[in-house]
């Protein structure tokens, strides 16, 4: 399986605090990966680096078949290259309808002039409806997304990511604050998505990670502590020490 994203030897320091310390990580083209780790392990900072929000002090981040470096690109360029990111708290455009939210995210030319003269064709409407079905929001399309429940917003955001047709999906704690039924639905959306693309899920909840049934990477103090199946890492003594604080 060829590599989609390769992070190697990355370090970043905030005011003397090493948030990421010589981290190396890679993921293939159609793979689901869960990243777990205690608070402050550097999970969010890792995502910030991949999406271009934070520039590392050293290290390489290599992307895709053409092996381009993501370090020189802006956030928007990285997103256009095929990296989608979902934030911890649901961030959707609350002032706009679910339909508009999805339409905005559809993979299209992002140039201001083509956006200005954009006319929506039937195929785009079709795509939006398909996506809405996928995330279970077909009935809510004309509603303002601000009126949706917490879980629905999370799905909408995942739906927007899927609309971008990314090759890599970074998802930060998708199940936080969800009811068990909603988690079930979220799991199935993510598992479905991982069939055609790489998905990285950052999660605290072991039960949720177990349902994803995928390879797990454990971060601790900014570097990889263990990697493997969930059972494998949870039996690792170091991981137990870190998690239980012994």
């Amino acid at each position, binding site marked *: 399986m060829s590599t989609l994203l390769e992070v190697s030897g990355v370090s970043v320091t*905030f005011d003397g*605090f090493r948030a990421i310390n010589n981290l190396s990580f890679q993921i293939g083209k159609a793979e689901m990966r869960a990243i777990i780790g205690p608070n402050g392990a550097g999970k969010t900072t890792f995502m910030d680096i991949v999406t271009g929000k934070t520039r590392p002090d050293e290290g390489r981040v290599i992307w895709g078949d053409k092996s381009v470096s993501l370090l020189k690109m802006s956030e928007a360029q990285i997103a256009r290259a095929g990296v989608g990111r979902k934030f911890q708290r649901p961030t959707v455009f609350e002032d706009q309808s679910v339909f508009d939210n999805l339409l905005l995210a559809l993979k299209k030319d992002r140039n201001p002039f083509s956006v200005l003269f954009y006319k929506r064709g039937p195929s785009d409407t079709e795509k939006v409806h398909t996506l809405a079905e996928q995330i279970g929001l077909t009935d809510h399309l004309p509603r303002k997304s601000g009126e949706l429940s917490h879980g629905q917003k999370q799905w909408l955001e995942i739906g927007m990511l899927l609309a971008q047709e990314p090759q890599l999906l970074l998802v930060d704690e998708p199940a936080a604050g969800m009811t068990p039924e909603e988690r079930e639905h979220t799991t199935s959306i993510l598992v479905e998505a991982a069939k055609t693309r790489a998905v990285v899920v950052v999660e605290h909840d072991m039960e949720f990670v177990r349902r994803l049934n995928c390879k797990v990477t454990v971060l601790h103090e900014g570097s990889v502590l263990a990697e493997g199946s969930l059972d494998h890492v949870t039996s690792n003594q170091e991981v137990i020490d870190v998690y239980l604080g012994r």
Partner: protein
Amino acid sequence: MRVLLAALAAILFLSPTLQAQPTTVQEVLQAHGDAIAKGSRKSIGPAIDAIAASGLPQAQTVLETWQAKDMWQRKSDGLFFSAKEVAKKTYRLTDFDTGQTVGEFDKGDLRQLKPNSGVRALIGVALVQFQLSDPDPARRLDALTAIQRDPEPSHLAPLRASIDGETDPAIKIRKQQLETLLTIRFDSDDASRIAAIETISKDISLDTRATLNTLLATTRKAAPGAVPETENIAAVLKPGTEQLSAGDAYTLLADNGLAPALITDGEQRNILSANISGGKVSGVPVASLNTQAARDRAYAALVAEGKAVPRPTAEDITAALANHSFYDAYFEPSKPVTDAAAKALKSVEIRVAFNQTLDLALDGISLASIFFLAAIGLAITFGVMGVINMAHGEFIMMGAYTGYVVQQFIPNYTVSILVALPLAFAVTFAAGVAMERLVIRHLYNRPLETLLATFGISIALQQIAKNIFGTQARPLTAPEWLDGAWVLNDVVSISFIRIAIFALALIFLGVFLFIMRRTRLGLETRAVTQNPRMAASMGINPDRVNMLTFGLGSGIAGIAGVAIGLFAKVTSELGSDYIVQSFMTVVVGGVGNIWGTLAGAAMIGFLQKGIEWMNPSNTLAAQTYMIIFIIIFIQFRPRGIIALKGRAAGD
């Protein structure tokens, strides 16, 4: 003394009328009686010199009396006396030598000597040597100042003569300095002039520079052929260069009669207009003269008719310029002297430049202190609380008006300032707390709305101040001990008010650091800034902390207002004059850090002074360039000079 004796000897030798040492001043006067009575500026010289050089103690009195037009001649015997009017038309005469009253005489028997202003000036010069040795030090100083103001070659000898006998050390130093300057300008011996020039090459006083500049004054000249060797040349100029444009060079030639004058387009037009006859000028119809080419043709026709002189053509001008040399010549004929002076001036100018830099730095520091004072309150509300307060400038204004009102009740300026400072703090503290409670509290996390709401308060406050105090500036007078300036030398000086403001800025920095680091309020403020929820859960009341912090920031603005009011005019627009600079200070410095504010104030203060120095005619331009610089600066350090990094920056 030697010089004086030499002068004396010279006079004795030269004056044929004075065969023996005179014993009374009356003898001297009588010897020159005719000249004195005639009072002509041309012929009076020897008479004055004789009196001054007589060595008699009465000489000074005689000269002073003469100068004051109080010297009268008795018609009967031609003797001179000091006269005083005792009754109408009756004068009492006093003998110069004995000091005895001679008697009272009718005006008809006497003749008053009325020296004209030229003669009086000559007497004045002669008197200088007496004044320079006057027993009263104040009069000696007056004499020195008079010489300094209007030096003349004749002052040199008496000045030199008086130095040895000088007892007061301070006056002696002044005499020596003045003697050096006079030597440079007037001494006949080049070597001693050059030596004197070399001694002052480390002196930056205005007098020294004026002396050297006078010595190096040049005049621009043109001469046919090569530069004449008789001149003391400062620089040879080539026409068509930056120093001397071709046009100026030709004008110089024309002015000196070395070339025919240019005829401007306007003059040409007037000549044409004067030669209109029957709607034509030399056969060219007037109506067609609306281009320069047509006019040139008509003018050429006039020249051909002999009615006008030809205009010099471009070739004429080029040839004239090529055939002449242009140069700046010193008025001072001696080349070694001008060379030495130029060298000395250069060395002086380096020192002056150094001192100017020092002066500029002091100005920069004082401006920085003002910005710091104006911005520190803003740094607290904006930096610590994240609240934009557009009414901050109006709090400064309120402080200044508080100072003004206090002065209406307390006439003693020192006491009134001491009362005004805490009172201004109290007034603006209260205003700040009220504003925080009524408005800002409801708009936390809405910075743009806060900006606009506080702007609303700002225009309301400004207009209220205008309604109460009127639009004219109100005085806020500084106590006397703050008047004046600390003068280091002729270049470097700084006014006491600015020193006081600098001190105040330092005090505020200290107070701020103390409050933030050593008090409960500071601890709570920092806690609320970093994590309001956690702070609240630990029993800190964020409402109270925000209120007090805002009050503190506003109160400091009030005190800054009193300080600014002391040197700026107090108007309702006082605050808005400072608000943009204050914001710039905070933004450039970096938000949330008092040292950042200090750095920002220093940078903006020095920058503004620096730009003003480069373009001294125009403070408006200085401000424009400064703002442009800041906009560009923000490009490279978007978070200010001292920036918080990482997650704390709230990305």
